């Protein structure tokens, strides 16, 4: 957003200041942008692929682009933060299970009281 002003003597129009949209009336704008960037970053490791994730992330954000009520926006941001936590848990579990399967297979069959697992 740009603010134009008229100089007193000659009435010349001069650009007085450029106010960036993010510092404007809605400070939540910055929060929403950071949330998008954080989710995009996390999406690089998504099992179905980074592109798949980015498409769905973008459409999810675009679907709500006209929401103006700060309370509503806060609720949506909270939902985004929840998704971040879910993705972190997904990635952790995937790694943990891969390590467990690779290195602790015998232990698991002992605990579950079954024979050695067959491929």
């Amino acid at each position, binding site marked *: 957003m740009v603010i134009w002003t008229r100089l007193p003597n000659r009435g010349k129009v001069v650009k007085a200041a450029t106010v960036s949209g993010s510092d404007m009336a809605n400070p939540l704008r910055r929060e929403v942008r*950071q949330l998008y*960037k*954080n989710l995009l*970053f*996390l999406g690089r490791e998504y099992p179905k692929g980074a592109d798949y994730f980015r498409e769905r992330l973008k459409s999810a954000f675009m679907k709500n682009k006209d929401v103006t009520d700060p309370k509503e926006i806060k609720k949506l941001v909270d939902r985004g933060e929840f998704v*971040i936590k879910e993705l*972190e848990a997904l*990635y*952790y579990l*995937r*790694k*943990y299970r*891969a*390590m*467990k399967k*690779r*290195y*602790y297979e015998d232990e698991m069959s002992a605990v579950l009281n079954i024979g050695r697992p*067959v*491929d």
Partner: protein
Amino acid sequence: ENTKIRVKPDHSGVVTDGVKHSMNPFCEIAVEEAVKLKEKKLIKEVVAVSCGPTQVTETIRTALAMGCDRGIHVEVSGKDYEAMGPLQISKIFAALAKKEEASLIILGKQAIDDDCNQTGQMTAALLDWPQGTFASEVTIDGEKVKVVREIDGGLETIKISMPAVLTADLRLNTPRYATLPNIMKAKKKKIANMKPADLGVDMVSRVEVLRVDEPPTRLAGVKVETVDDLVAKLRANGTI
């Protein structure tokens, strides 16, 4: 976890070009434990160390994003890097531990690319420090460390004096994810650069890799309906 590993045509090793490298999962657990100890104010500073070519700085950055204070990149590349193994790394770690006056060295129990499970033990031996390996629980009590170790058949609890070497096992903790905001913040943290020679370490390997092969393909299992079928099949393939 999804990358297909390919053996080089000359059987000298596996193909690493173009393969995405990331922090060894057991070392992630080690970094997490160190950061947790610092958050509990039981240790003062966490230094993340990695040995290898330029790319390892990315791994150090991940450690910094997880909460380490600074990093040290010990540059090893080319033939030295190909021949680098636990002995060379533990010599580097031992030299650094003395230089930095470290009270604890925490690392993953083994690297998932070579599965040696030797670096921690060798480092402790070179420094003549006690070791708590396969740690699934670490508690600092004054100048001593209580370590619960995962061993065949159960758990063993030991108490060792610091300075000490600890190696992390799978159940020690749940490593935090290095999120984008944390990675941005970590850009301010310093990574020192040095060579093994600066630490007085020679990288000569006493191990020569003769050949690398893929594991033999396992034959599919066969299901049988009755005990008689089983006996017949075992007779047929000469087992009985």
